[in-house]
């Protein structure tokens, strides 16, 4: 049990010190236990709050109308709540972000893990970490001022504020996560595999392509899932850059409003406990379930990776 130390058979003075030491142990162990429990309590609290504040809206708008309706007019009388456009917008920006960040991220991870000399790896890795640390509002600003005019002229659009611009900025934010986790996965592939491949006469690229990447595939998939999770939850950048149009977007070059931006542009106006407030919490609930699903899949895949190479 807590705080037990092996018995000491030396003289008296040692006994008093032993008792104090055990109490310290007990305190620290219970403190750590409480800290761990606190995390779980907070998570359960968040879920409870989302359910409590968000579920009541389904009395007013049935769930299928909420999820598949296309009209979002929260301040009209009577208000209508349909989040299809937001859901599709989230899918679009996530798709664009993933399509850009996965090939680049995995290739970069492969380079850093397999090809790069140690000095290059040591300089490049911190730079990638810095990219991860840039605040999302700065990314939004860069997207607004630099990227959206470029996108507008390159694709001949009416406006550069569209899902494509938002997707590109999001890919810059998921890239560091994908590179980091993929690189760890690639390094975890046992060196024996590579040695065996070289011994059979394969070149470096053939080894990377046929041995390393398939061997690290579970870890790379987990990295992609984490990057996707980041893209789904990003708010400030998409609020500034994705355009904010209410129609269901049919192409990534349409201006659109993902779920996170929809919550941010409405929560200020919503009065606590009112219908719009509940509807926004319901969007939050949907977002939470989506992110949870993505994280659970990533977890499962990572577990498989660990078991594959357990020694």
């Amino acid at each position, binding site marked *: 049990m807590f705080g037990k130390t092996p018995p000491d058979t030396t003289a008296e003075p040692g006994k008093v010190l032993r008792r104090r030491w055990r109490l310290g142990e007990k305190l620290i162990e219970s403190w750590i236990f409480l800290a761990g429990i606190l995390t779980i309590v907070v998570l359960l609290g968040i879920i409870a709050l989302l359910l409590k504040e968000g579920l009541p809206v389904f009395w007013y708008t049935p769930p299928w109308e909420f999820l598949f309706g296309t009209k979002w*007019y*929260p*301040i*009209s009388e009577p208000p209508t709540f349909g989040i299809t*456009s937001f859901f599709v917008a989230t899918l679009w920006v996530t798709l664009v972000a993933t399509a850009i960040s996965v090939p680049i991220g995995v290739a970069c991870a492969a380079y850093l893990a397999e090809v790069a000399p140690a000095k290059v790896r040591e300089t490049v890795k911190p730079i990638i970490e810095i990219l991860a640390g840039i605040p999302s509002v700065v990314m939004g600003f860069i997207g*607004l001022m630099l990227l959206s*005019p470029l996108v*507008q002229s390159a694709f001949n659009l*009416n*406006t550069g*504020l569209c899902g494509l611009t938002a997707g590109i900025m999001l890919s810059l934010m998921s890239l560091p996560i994908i590179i980091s986790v993929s690189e760890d996965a690639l390094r975890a592939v046992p060196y024996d595999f590579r040695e065996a491949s070289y011994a059979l006469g394969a070149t470096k690229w053939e080894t990377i392509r046929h041995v390393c990447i398939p061997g690290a595939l579970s870890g790379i998939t987990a990295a992609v899932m984490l990057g996707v999770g980041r893209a789904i939850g990003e708010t400030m950048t998409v*609020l*500034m850059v994705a*355009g*904010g*149009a*209410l*129609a*269901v977007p049919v192409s990534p070059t349409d*201006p659109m*409003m993902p779920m996170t931006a929809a919550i*941010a*542009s*409405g929560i*200020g*106006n*919503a*009065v*606590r406990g*009112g219908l719009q407030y509940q509807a926004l919490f319901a969007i939050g609930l949907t977002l939470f379930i989506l992110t949870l699903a993505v994280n659970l899949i990533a977890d499962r895949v990572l577990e498989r990776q660990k078991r594959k190479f357990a020694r």
Partner: protein
Amino acid sequence: MRKRKKLLIILPVVAVVALIVTIIALGSDGGSSIKIIGSNTVTPLSSVWAEEFMNTHPDVSIAVSGPGSGVGIAALINDTTDICQASRKIKQSEIDQAEANGVEPYEIQVATDALSVVVHPSNPVSELTIVQLSAIYTGEITNWNEVGGNDAEIVAIARDTNSGTHVFFKEHVVQMEGLPTEDKSLEYGGDVLMLPSTEEGVSQVAYNPNAIFYPGLGYVTEEVKPLAIMQTADSTGVLPSVQTALDGTYPIARPLLFYTDGEPTGVIKDFIDYCLSSEGQEKVIEVGYVPLQ
């Protein structure tokens, strides 16, 4: 050895705590503070007023934020702000909610705004009727050539639902309140961009030759061109300005309001008295809005 390690941890913690306590003690010298939350349109004005007032009353600190009139009114109802600045009138349902919470909204008009509709300076269109504006913002009219401009798709820009300007424009222009064509069922079109701030809208219009947006008069810069608004197809177009808002010829002028919980007292009353005084009203013209007379 153990003692030294303990000291190494305890000493910095104590130092940090002492620092925080000192900072807090120095900060709260018994001075008062005023929170102003609400309209993005009124923010440039209340920021200037706040700065001037703080210069003459150094023990008062005023914090101004402008996420939108809707946010301000919600804060008023939830009793989390001293003054709510709004660019639209409070609705009856919001008054009911406030009273249910024990808050009595007290309205004070502090200035007037001529809501300007702006386009890019290269856009050949220079005047529009309210009916045409409504059709543009519901998505019925999609090309500039339908209103006498170039053959290009219109990029209609609006504010999001946090904004009082969004609501005011919806009621008075999109739904054409007061005109024979009034239709309360009209909504913003699906292709209208809803942006989170007025500055973003103005900068988009300054960049995009096909964009149109409706900022408050105080946000209109040299980089955009205000349109003359015609009440009906036979009236003459009126450009937004201090003069046309004061004499009532500009069709979409609106009051800029402060709401407080009950009649203002103490420091809040002093501040609002300053805003309504002649010096305060001079600042209104400087910022670009319309004073009370």
